[in-house]
């Protein structure tokens, strides 16, 4: 018998995961900004303003990443065990990128910091470059697949009970050899830089930084569009990993992801609306001195990424496909937590609007004034 409540919960939690993923990509503007410290800041004071503008937000990106991981673990544990335990190197590389970021803001300007300010700035750059590219590349495998197997019966093999195995010795590095994945990784990288530039234009009160930001907006928007369009067009013309809703069998279907958009009009509207907003924010900021581009491009980013996650998991699609054995692919049905656990967590998720409200209020309270040189001279807690 079909348990519609359970199916609803599985869809609900895929939506939550997608939303967290979308917010994470938006918040990667912190990472993008970290790769622009020396490009946009020519004096110590300018760099200090840039670092502090980012430093007051880095924890949200970090927390969103941690929550994204925790929520994925709780709602789709088979993904957690299969991907993290298999694509070991790519996830470890991402972790290393984020470990070095966490301390860099706090330690960068502190006296006697052992490694020197430059080293911490290099850490920030590493996090900004590799963190974004690798995350994008890893998410690319949601559409291109990975070589893994899952056999729960292995649990009964007492000398080798591991159920998820990566079937290539590269353990995740192979994802970087797939150009489609890399296109998404680079699109995320340049998008993060675009968002960072728009954020600086909005948040730092400094004419030189503003002028330089506008100039570099163009330089980053063009490669972003090239890589994003490459990824999306490729995605729409390629075969996708479809699931037979009756048997649960996974099979290759032409234009699956394009069909998903067409068959889910709401998601299509989200996608098109998102893309338009992203482009609008960029175009308006290029056309004239404009400080509110981050709102359009930021919201557009969230909508676009959300829709991409939704077409990866909804409409009878395997969101984590196995190219080793199609039938081992993960879907929101075969990899989710139990109905009871999803229900418990759904009650907890009702807190999310409340959390969003206090984040909004707190941000508003401390961001009433733009960052300027005066504040950097008077503030007691400066990065």
């Amino acid at each position: 018998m079909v348990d519609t409540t359970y199916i609803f919960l599985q869809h609900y939690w895929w939506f939550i995961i997608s939303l967290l993923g979308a917010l994470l990509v938006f918040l990667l503007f912190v990472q993008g900004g970290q790769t622009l410290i020396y490009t946009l800041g020519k004096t110590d004071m300018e760099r200090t303003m840039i670092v502090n503008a980012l430093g007051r937000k880095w924890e949200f990106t970090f927390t969103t990443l941690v929550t994204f991981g925790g929520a994925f673990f709780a709602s789709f544990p088979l993904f957690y065990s299969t991907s993290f335990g298999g694509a070991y190197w790519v996830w470890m590389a991402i972790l290393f990128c984020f470990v070095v970021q966490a301390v860099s803001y706090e330690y960068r300007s502190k006296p006697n910091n052992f490694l020197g300010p430059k080293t911490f700035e290099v850490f920030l750059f590493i996090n900004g470059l590799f963190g974004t590219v690798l995350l994008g590349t890893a998410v690319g495998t949601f559409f291109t697949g990975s070589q893994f197997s899952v056999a729960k019966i292995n649990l009964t093999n007492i000398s080798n009970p591991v159920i998820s195995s990566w079937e290539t010795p590269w353990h995740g590095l192979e994802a970087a050899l797939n150009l489609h994945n890399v296109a998404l990784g680079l699109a995320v990288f340049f998008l993060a830089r675009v968002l960072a530039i728009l954020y600086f234009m909005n948040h730092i009160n400094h004419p030189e930084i503003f002028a330089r930001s506008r100039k570099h907006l163009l330089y980053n928007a063009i490669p972003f569009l090239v890589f994003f369009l490459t990824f999306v067009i490729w995605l729409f013309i390629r075969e996708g990993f479809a699931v037979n809703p009756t048997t649960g069998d996974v099979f290759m279907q032409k234009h699956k992801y394009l069909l998903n958009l067409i068959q889910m009009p709401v998601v299509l509207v989200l996608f098109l609306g998102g893309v338009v907003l992203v482009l609008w924010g960029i175009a308006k900021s290029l056309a004239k001195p404009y400080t509110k581009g981050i709102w359009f491009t930021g919201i557009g980013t969230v909508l676009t990424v959300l829709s991409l996650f939704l077409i990866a998991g909804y409409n009878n699609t395997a969101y984590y496909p196995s190219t080793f054995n199609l039938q081992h692919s993960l879907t929101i049905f075969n990899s989710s937590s139990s109905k009871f656990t999803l229900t418990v967590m759904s009650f907890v998720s009702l807190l999310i609007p409340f959390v969003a409200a206090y984040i909004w209020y707190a941000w508003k309270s401390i961001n009433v004034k733009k960052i300027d040189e005066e504040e950097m001279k008077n503030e007691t807690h400066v990065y």
Partner: protein
Amino acid sequence: MEHFDLSLVNWSRAQFALTAMYHWVFVPLTLGLAFIMAFMETLYYKTGDEEWKRITKFWMTLFGINFAIGVATGIILEFEFGTNWSNYSWFVGDIFGAPLAIEGIMAFFMESTFIAVMFFGWNKVSKKFHLLSTWLVALGANLSALWILVANAWMQYPAGMFFNPDTARNEMHNFWEVLLSPVSVNKFLHTISSGYVLAALFVVGISAWYLLKGRNVLLAKRSIIVASVFGLITSVFLALTGDGSAYQVAQKQPMKLAAMEGLYEGKEGAPLIVIGALTPGKQYNDNKDPYLFRIQIPKLLSFLGYRSGDAFVPGVKDIVEGGYTYTDKDGNQKVALSAEQKIERGRIAIQALADYKNAKELGDTTAMAYHRKLLDANFEYFGYGYLNDPKSIIPNVPLTFYSFHIMVGLGFLFIAFFILILYLVFFKEFKINKWLLRTAILMIPLAYIASQAGWIVAEVGRQPWVIQDILPTVAAVSRIDASAVQVTFFLFFIIFTTLLIAELRIMFTQIKKGPKDGGK
């Protein structure tokens, strides 16, 4: 037939232990210092005395330096459950993942939102909102500790779950049993209070250094008073929750208790070892005296473990060989099985799962029901089925024993220290006692040693289990090369150590500078 790669298991354990131990260097200070700062800011809010604000901001600076690296090490722990313990992630993810997700939604966002207000909001928000933010940082930090400790406690005492053979995993059926199990409650209270005590000793120790140097005297005296009162209350609470934790260990993890006390042969009216040294090379079934020397309190172990001075406490040998009588969780008297019998029962459970799966594929419902019944009847020993040697259920006894006694000994020393400090503060001239000020500084590393020792007891003492009786560590690992884990182990070691050195240098420099310029 393939075999467990023990090298992989050991390196995976080493990597997790490395991350956890580094993480726990920073977390307890965050837990406690957040409250101490909140108390101090409350005093500022109530009195309007600018000196309290200066004191609060100084400790906040040290908090910020410490917090950043705690965050860095924390993210690794969360993801290592997947990268290094993938089988574990599936087998118990339905239960274990939920606290992690709730931690993110409820605690991390609260912490990271209000920490920004706490650091940058002094001149931007009202005094009241700032104070609220500082309290919410403390609450958020402690809430995050709640959820991860609930998850850890569940591994020590799996409650509120059942095994679902269709999905081949454990599933939650009662959230409140997971959250409020006696092991969870004790573990949470004991662990956070250890953080409070550590933070109190940290504040007292640094303040003592200022007094020795004759600098920042007002800051130091006020800090010592706030931290010592906080420290005394929480260290007494620490002892009480420690007693509660030990009682739970006796009931749920008797092997861990035996290892904590170096008790090889069980007895009625078992004594508690106050100080002792173990005989090197002692085997569980030889006739060597386990102790080179010992000072003990008669009957106390029986009393603490079973609330009766004459109760029987099983030793390592009893638990391996079985045959003693115990009371199960439903209050029934039972004769303990030997480890060998438990391994046999575990194998039956695992085979029953295989047969159940096979019958399901064939659509044989009668056979399914039969094997399901067999599985359920033997499931409590499921994890034993992966073990080959009865001796493998014995943890590292010396490490557990010494860690336990160091932790307990230092815990009582801290209570005495706080009493002495407060007595001198209120009844004598504190600053002239230079020896005591130096002792106060020495207490800081001792607090860290006690704190680490506590986790060694908890985690080494429960080996070979990652989930008590249900999943041994050897069956929980990911299928990766041991060499890959070796590489990441050393990379983590280098990064964590480098960052620790940076943190200590920055911290010492800030302490030397004092609160003059707000900590920049």
